[in-house]
């Protein structure tokens, strides 16, 4: 199990250091499969049907459906690679290490109950933080979607690590929500590409108050 955690952490570092969305999608797919396995592995001794369902549905959604969706978008839009992120890849990796340390510290500091695994919690936190960080530091919209997936993976892992189970319906609903969310993002990405001929987030600053506010309030009344 800890090995799984380490693999997940490494996968994150891979995304942090990679400039190609295609690679990132593949990594996210791998992450999804691992995460699907996670609850099954975690409760290996007393497996219930529910856990099977949760694990398998997680695996299917996160490991297969979502990456497939993203792949589809990637192909349709033909986005090649992230060229100039706000934070360079090297620095990102370095920051990734810092984030890892931070999440480890948080996991230890949380004073988790005995049945929760600190390593898994640290991993989950790390995924969330990396997801957030990627979202902020990448320019390509598709990378943001992927980062969102990473973050959601982290949240999912957190739920598993502190052994919290939702009723299946809710669990499925959550997965469905995420799926639809990513589907929508993909759809919008497609439109972005078509409408704006680019998918750079930093060029989407049309909407701000820098123009709409007049310097002398009330003078025009």
């Amino acid at each position: 199990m800890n090995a799984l955690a380490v693999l997940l952490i490494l996968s994150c570092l891979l995304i942090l250091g990679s400039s190609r969305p295609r690679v990132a999608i593949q990594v996210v797919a791998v992450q999804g499969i691992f995460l699907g396995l996670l609850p099954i592995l975690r409760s290996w001794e007393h497996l219930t049907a529910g856990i099977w369902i949760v694990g398998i549905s997680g695996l299917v959604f996160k490991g297969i459906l979502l990456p497939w969706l993203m792949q589809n978008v990637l192909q349709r839009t033909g986005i090649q690679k992230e060229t100039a992120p706000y934070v360079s890849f090297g620095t990102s990796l370095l920051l990734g290490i810092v984030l890892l340390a931070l999440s480890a510290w948080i996991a230890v500091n949380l004073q988790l109950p005995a049945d929760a695994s600190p390593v898994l919690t640290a991993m989950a936190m790390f995924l969330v933080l990396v997801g957030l960080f990627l979202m902020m530091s990448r320019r390509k919209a598709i990378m943001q979607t992927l980062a969102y997936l990473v973050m959601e993976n982290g949240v999912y892992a957190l739920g598993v690590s502190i052994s919290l189970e939702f009723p299946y319906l809710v669990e499925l609903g959550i997965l469905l929500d995420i799926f639809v969310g990513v589907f929508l993002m993909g759809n919008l990405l497609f439109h972005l590409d078509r409408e704006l001929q680019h998918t750079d987030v930093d060029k989407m600053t049309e909407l701000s108050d820098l123009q709409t506010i007049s310097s002398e309030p009330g003078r025009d009344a």
Partner: protein
Amino acid sequence: MINLLVCIIVLPALMGIISYFIQCNGIRRTFWLLTAILHFLLSLKAALMAPYLAPTLWIGIDALSTIFLPLSSLLFLMVTLYGIGYVKREPVEQQNDQEIGGLYQNTPESIFTGSLLLFLSAMSLAILSQHLGLQWMAIEATTLSSAPLIYYHRSKTSLEAAWKYLILCSVGIAVALMGIFFIGLALPRGIGDLTLSIILQHSGQVNTKWMEVAFILMLVGYGTKMGLAPLHNWLPDAHSEAPSPVSALLSGALLNCALLGILRIQQINAAAGMASFGQGLMVIFGLLSMGVAGIFLLGQTDYKRMLAYSSVEHMGIITLGFGIGGLGAFGALLHVINHSLIKSPLFMTAGNIHSRFHTKSALKINGLMKVLPASGILWLAGFFAIVGTPPFGSFISEFTILFAGISSKLWWVNGLFGFFLILAFIGMTGVFLKMSFGKTDAPPDKEHSISVLPAGILLLLALVLGIWIPGWLSNIINLAVQMLGNGAG
């Protein structure tokens, strides 16, 4: 009676899915209207029967939902009335927008209607769910179903707005989900159930620290959706880019759903004896939101953005009211109602104005009272209502919050409250007066009653609430306030 509540949720969802496939505009619109009316009637019935409906496993109607459900449903009905006229007016073919300088083509009406009905379903679920996970799901579903609505015009800017909306709210909601996990962590071992009633049963034994973490995470998460500063940044974009009926719903109903998410955990907090922790944070967020809104309202010239920032401001006022607690919470719940009843008609009127002038810049609009007499009157009446002028209901609720704040001797809070109200007022006065009055050569328009009537009805209700608060309403609000804990922060 669970069937009633399930009906309320499932009916619009089913209708929504069906609507995607209906090709004939007329039939679909009838469907839409029927659903809205039916939903409203069912909601009313549910609200009337609320005390007798025992809470069930995941879905139930308590005092808080009794306030929110009919309100949202009423807004939806009015938006439907307005919206049918709106979509009729909106051309199907591609057109040129001079403001943005680009071409755009509206989303097919079937997708629009379908999403709208799904949106209603998600909102109803968010209001009625008594399970934190389910509520989370529903709130996320509102985001998802409303994103296509914001992207209705399919222009560059609306795309941008929808994208920002989707990303920011999704991130927020992910944070909220973490918060829910922490609630699970905070509960005594072995409970593992996030049904509200069960959590409340065990609220005496929760781990305070994790509960605090959970509250912060959920406040930030749902706060993003609710538009609390500094998490509000999607809001002005989305509200200003969305078509007016959608803006009306976003502002009047959706924000309330996110607020309900925060209230639920505050309810747990209160039961766990930690009410003041949450209240302190809510006071801060409330003031911050008001302040930020004030900053952007001052000198704002885009009237839809102005309305959006006004929503941020009012969400701030509401949060502040809950933060003050006690009478403040009463005022805040009252203000939720008032804000919805006032902001929606304002957005609808903004829609009328936009379809006449084709600009969002207040600088280019003059003499509304002459050009669009009915909308002009609504616009001004809405202005006086939204800034809390008596005898509109917003005055009573704002005064109640102020009164509560002063009774709690929160001097700084009250000082800032007053100052921010003035800032916002000054900002909004400029825009509203500029638009409503003045000389214009444009000929007056005869307006369709359908485009002004819904707004008029809502504003009239807000006016009534300023003069007379029915006994049952104040009873329910009092019940809800008790659920949130009585302690004045």
